[in-house]
């Protein structure tokens, strides 16, 4: 008997009934609800920006928060589908958050060209703390969600996880912080998530090893 046959015998011997992984949509929706409720709670705790009602009439504000919310939702869905080795045949799904993110950056480039970039001085800003607070539970929850799957694309999975958290955190920060310049948003609202993404990306093969 060769090694493969022995292995098959051992694997067969070890087989136990398995609880099937729920449909990706059924796994992503609870994450979205929990993460959105959590971020809403943090926004409420930190205090909604005083000009929030006026900002709801501002097309730039609506466009960038809308885009990042869409990035977050589509990335969370992609992460849930990536838990299945063949993504249930919808590999194109990962293109959606990437396209939305590219649109967001193009939008930022246009806005900074018109209104200026306003690069802030680098210092420890309260937005860093707020970003970490907003990202903590959604990040922990998405890690819990994704680690129960079996992804064949660990790097894409880590990117999707980070984008889903970053998008939501960005929206939350836009609801609390009154600084609307692209420089501030890039430096203080996105940088904490970029760092989280870099760390998770570097460790992706280890984190999503199975």
């Amino acid at each position, binding site marked *: 008997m*060769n*090694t*493969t*046959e*022995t*292995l*098959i*015998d*051992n*694997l*067969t*011997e*070890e*087989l*136990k*009934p*398995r*609880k*099937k*992984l729920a*449909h990706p949509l059924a796994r992503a929706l609870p994450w979205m609800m929990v993460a959105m409720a959590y971020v809403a709670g943090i926004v409420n705790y930190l205090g909604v920006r005083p000009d929030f009602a006026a900002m709801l009439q501002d097309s730039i504000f609506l466009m960038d928060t809308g885009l990042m919310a869409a990035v977050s939702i589509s990335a969370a869905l992609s992460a849930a589908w990536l*838990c*299945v*080795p*063949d*993504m*249930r*045949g919808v590999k194109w799904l990962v293109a959606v958050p990437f396209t939305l993110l590219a649109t967001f950056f193009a939008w930022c480039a246009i806005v900074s060209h018109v209104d200026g970039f306003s690069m802030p001085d680098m210092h420890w800003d309260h937005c860093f703390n707020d970003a970490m607070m907003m990202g903590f539970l959604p990040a922990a929850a998405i890690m819990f969600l994704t680690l129960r*799957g*079996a992804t*064949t*694309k660990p790097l894409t999975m880590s990117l999707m996880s980070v984008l889903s958290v970053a998008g939501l955190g960005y929206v939350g920060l836009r609801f609390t912080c009154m600084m609307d310049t692209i420089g501030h948003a890039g430096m203080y609202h996105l940088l904490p998530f970029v760092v989280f993404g870099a760390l998770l990306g570097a460790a992706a093969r280890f984190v999503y090893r*199975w």
Partner: protein
Amino acid sequence: MKPSNTNTPATQAEIWQDWATQAQGGDKRAYASLLKEVSPFIKGAIIGGLANPDWADDIVQEALISVHKSLHTYSPDRPFKPWLMAIVNFRRTDFLRKHYNSRGDKKTSLDNADFLKSHVTNPTHSGELKDVERALGGLPAKQRKVFEMMKIQGFSAKEVANEMGMSVSAVKVSAHRTMNKLKETLG
């Protein structure tokens, strides 16, 4: 899954789909049949693209272990082959990356006279303890520990599996591969 009210024979894909579904429910016979049928299929699918056909068995075994670990992610309403091939391609890429990262393609056999002259302390005694230790030293730490515990210290596969947090099958495969690697290295 094959509709029961038709008399047309089930295709191979439908049979595999059925077996995989039954295996998820704990049916060992269906599972054994599935693994036995997919093994040659996997080997046939990957062997043409490998620089060394001997690697195919290693990749097949890795893929089977991965199928075992991820069986809960298979959905009976989906075809089985795309799910299987996603795992196979992932494991093949993983195997090749590890192989080339460890400079496996640069390693030489001790039958190579030039290598013996320049690298081996005593070419006429290749295979002695020092050479074995050196060969073991070149292995990844986890693989070396499994081999040492099982083949040198005499622990059983189950004991090693408990200690290392691995499955018994993975321990046996790891020890077997290490033995093959040592044979290959020491000639």
